[in-house]
């Protein structure tokens, strides 16, 4: 590196292109929103403005998706080694942008039905996506922290967006308080790590920890960082906020925050655990994974509210995913990446159905309300069924291969006990997902629950998630192969 490296190069900006695109579009949405304020004459006009804002946001997400491909042409470090573009970061950028686009598609109708002012909403989603994208390419812990905060703050606000509902405000406040507490843990961990290794760069930390004695402080640093991140992915025992927050937050937002930020945090966790060569990894992960799977599945068994049920299910899935972190890097990393992708596809799809079906005020979110859905809206019910089968892990859905890769990676690392716990948990999990299917198809409804026609945006959102879920289940090879490149690159 010569002195010219002091100034950012053009390639540096290319390596940050998706984030730049997202930010620009987020700002455009905000400016347009402000400019349109008060201009609308009556409900119809307002609605048109909001539709326009949504469309701009959607274009932003799609542009970010396209930018991911451009970014992929410039692998390497940027901005004084704080950002690294590699196949790993591109994978997660793609995932976050795709989820963002699908969530925006889901939100069009939702905003209208719930009568929520949409301007800041779309901007916040795009800004959140900036943080999430940045998390996967940040290789410097302070930048990771900044990215984490960008993503978290927008999700805190998004959680409270159903302003008329008390549960939504509760959800937002709870998420904010506990979330800030958790990020503080993370920051503390970063500080200790710096004390132990003299660096905040993940690669340097890895080099230090790989060579010679591991200072005791590093263990503490890893543990504290892990606490902060485990909170964000809703892993037990840091999961307590999840059901309440998911229940109160708007459904498309739950679809968003249970997939995109989670994927990003898992990306950070992968870098810290494998690239930074975190000490004490296997033991730590073993306990948290086993707890998450068990608590998540047992908790879900007794839920009657779909959103709470899916909240516990997401705790369980965080557990399955963490199993991959205890495995060896060669197959653990690709397994974890595959899992995040297929979980994102099926979960964002499931929440799209939930948000459509909830109708005004999210009135219909109990299991009881789903009775007879198979008759009233066969298409919606069939789609949800496929997502649920994927969550169970039935073959030819993405969920099957996700579990398959994770468990076989764990078996190759001789973690037989953890795999047994995982398989038993999958059997328990099958029960509560099936309950939803049974209710939809085999129970007669107790009350008249209206089902609106499927609007075009939601139709696209469902189609994309469905195709992705099935694609990952029928031809998982290419995605896994792509994910495997990372493992090879990191094991230098």
């Amino acid at each position, binding site marked *: 590196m010569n002195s010219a490296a002091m100034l950012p190069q053009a390639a540096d900006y290319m390596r940050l292109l998706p984030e730049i695109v997202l930010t620009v579009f987020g700002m455009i949405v905000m400016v347009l929103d402000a400019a349109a304020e008060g201009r609308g004459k009556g409900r119809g006009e307002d609605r048109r403005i909001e539709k326009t804002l949504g469309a701009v946001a959607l274009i932003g997400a799609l542009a970010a998706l396209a930018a991911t491909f451009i970014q992929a042409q410039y692998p390497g470090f940027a901005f004084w080694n704080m950002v690294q573009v590699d196949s790993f970061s591109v994978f997660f950028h793609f995932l976050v942008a795709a989820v963002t686009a699908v969530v925006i598609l889901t939100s069009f109708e939702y905003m209208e039905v719930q009568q929520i002012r949409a301007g800041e909403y779309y901007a916040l989603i795009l800004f959140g996506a900036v943080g999430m994208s940045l998390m996967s390419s940040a290789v410097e812990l302070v930048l990771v922290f900044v990215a984490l905060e960008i993503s978290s703050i927008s999700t805190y606000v998004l959680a409270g967006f159903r302003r008329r509902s008390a549960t939504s405000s509760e959800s937002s406040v709870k998420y904010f308080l506990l979330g800030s507490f958790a990020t503080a843990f993370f920051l503390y961990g970063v500080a200790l790590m710096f004390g132990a290794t003299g660096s905040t760069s993940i690669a340097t930390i890895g080099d230090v920890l790989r060579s010679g004695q591991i200072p005791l402080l590093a263990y503490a640093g890893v543990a504290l960082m892990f606490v902060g991140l485990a909170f964000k992915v809703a892993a037990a025992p840091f999961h307590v906020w999840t059901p309440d927050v998911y229940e109160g937050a708007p459904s498309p937002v739950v679809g968003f925050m249970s997939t995109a930020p989670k994927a990003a945090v898992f990306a950070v966790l992968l870098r810290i655990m494998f690239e930074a060569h975190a000490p004490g990894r296997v033991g730590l992960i073993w306990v948290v994974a086993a707890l998450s799977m068990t608590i998540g599945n047992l908790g879900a068994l007794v839920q009657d509210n779909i959103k709470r049920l899916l909240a516990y299910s997401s705790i369980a899935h965080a557990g399955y995913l963490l199993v991959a972190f205890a495995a060896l890097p060669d197959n653990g990393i690709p397994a974890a990446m595959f899992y995040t992708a297929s979980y994102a596809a099926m979960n964002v799809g499931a929440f799209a159905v939930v948000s459509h079906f909830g109708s005004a005020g999210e009135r219909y979110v109990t299991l009881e309300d789903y009775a007879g859905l198979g008759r009233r809206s066969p298409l919606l019910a069939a789609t949800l069924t496929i997502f649920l089968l994927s969550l169970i892990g*039935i*073959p030819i859905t993405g969920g099957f291969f996700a579990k*398959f890769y994770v468990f076989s990676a764990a078996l190759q690392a001789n973690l037989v006990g953890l795999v047994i716990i995982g398989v038993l948990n999958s*059997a328990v999990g099958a029960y509560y997902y099936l309950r939803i299917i*049974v209710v939809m198809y085999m129970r007669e409804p107790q009350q008249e629950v209206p089902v609106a026609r499927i609007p075009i945006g939601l139709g696209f959102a469902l189609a994309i998630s469905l195709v992705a879920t099935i694609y990952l289940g029928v*031809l998982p*090879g290419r995605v896994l192969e792509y994910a495997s490149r990372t493992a090879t690159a990191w094991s230098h």
Partner: protein
Amino acid sequence: MTTALDNAILSLVTFVPLAGGILLLLFPRRDRDIRVFALVVTLLDFVLSLHLPVHLARTQAGFQFEVNRRWISNPNIHYHMGVDGISMWLVVLTTFLTPLCVLISWKSIHDRTKEFFILLLVLETALIGVFTALDLFLFYFFWEATLIPMALLIGMYGHGRKVYAAVKFFLYTMIASMFMLAGILWLYAKTGTFDFVSVQAAIRSGQVEGFATAAPWLFLGFFIAFAVKVPLFPFHTWLPDAHVEAPTAGSVLLAGVLLKMGTYGMLRFNLGLFPDQSRSNAWWVMILALIGVIYGALVAMVQPNLKKLIAYSSISHLGFVVLGIFSFTQAGLDGATFVMLAHGVSTGALFMLAGILYERRHTYEIADFGGLATPMPIYATFFLFVTLASVGLPLLNGFIGEFLVLSGAFRDRAVYGVLGATGVIWSACYLLWMYQRVFFGKVTHQVNLTLPDLDGRERAALWPTAIVALVMGVAPLVWLNAIDPAVQSALSPFTILASKVVGR
């Protein structure tokens, strides 16, 4: 020879129903069109499947009509399909029964018709796939795939406690098949392939590391999954519930084909992959099979419910099949395969007959009937014919299979044969007694006097089963000379001298 067709035929037979189901999705909800279309698709599939017995090289052991392409590289999964003389007939049995199921559901299903026929077609694909798959992963996939449409058929279109029955059915089989999945994954981890033929070869040549210690568990893992499906005593409790609550078409396929998945699995995988374990575990399997034969028959005898009676008779008959398989004799296995086919045809017919009665009277209670021979003479004749076939009257299809199984069991150990033979007597008792209570005597309920006899559609559904039952009884060699070489190669690892049944 049309080699192109030979290569494609299994994929065609397997996936034509699925394609039909997908097309059906696009249909408008005009029930009549949907029914006609489903009938056409299933008939087309039946005609296609006839290519198999016509072109199968009968003297040749091993799999035919094979396709083997790589599907997924990691894990190493192949799209490998093929049939031998055993699985081929089970495929034909499936394609034979499904159009009859469409006919029998013509009127009884009038609510959510589209979904019903889509599920039926998907189920057919899954069932055929189970018998044609030669890749363990593919097999497992089809195996699980049968579960969902069947459970939905029971739960959505059944009667009474349908949800309970559907969930029980699903959980029982799903949990049991997890043991099989564990076994399959173990084999994959050690051999690096899911391919049945390669895995079998690796085991036989002793290349699989740690196989000796794992084999007992592997045998059990596969066995439990299959035993629940058969169902073998004491895993049978889901069956009566599922049958009683299922719609007629569901019962027909459940008894006719789904149960055979279990016995087929034992034959192909337990015997094929773990011959030594099969031998050493045979004694308790035989005992369970015998308990099934006798217990099923005794319980059938006291059932007040027509459908439950047939359900328990299935447990008894499938006990015969297991008895034959684990006798490790040529006669026993030939017979077991033949009983599978014969039972599929005659029990399928019995369930259709029961369903026809239910459509008219909305009850299965035997006590609600009596003297039906007077108002419904044609129905009574069909019923008698099928009952006699099921009892095992010589010259009808039940006899050959049971005879062969018993002769195999005798050769294995005389006491098995003696006890098994009582099952034949029991089955005559409960079936004929049931027949007497339903059809003879005075008409005790006035409503029964006005019951209409079979209409053309119902006769069209029943005639094929009656004809096949007769042909199978008169000319069993048509079936057996394809089964025999397949059985012989299945038995090759067993030391017992295989006696030829079919003179060639």
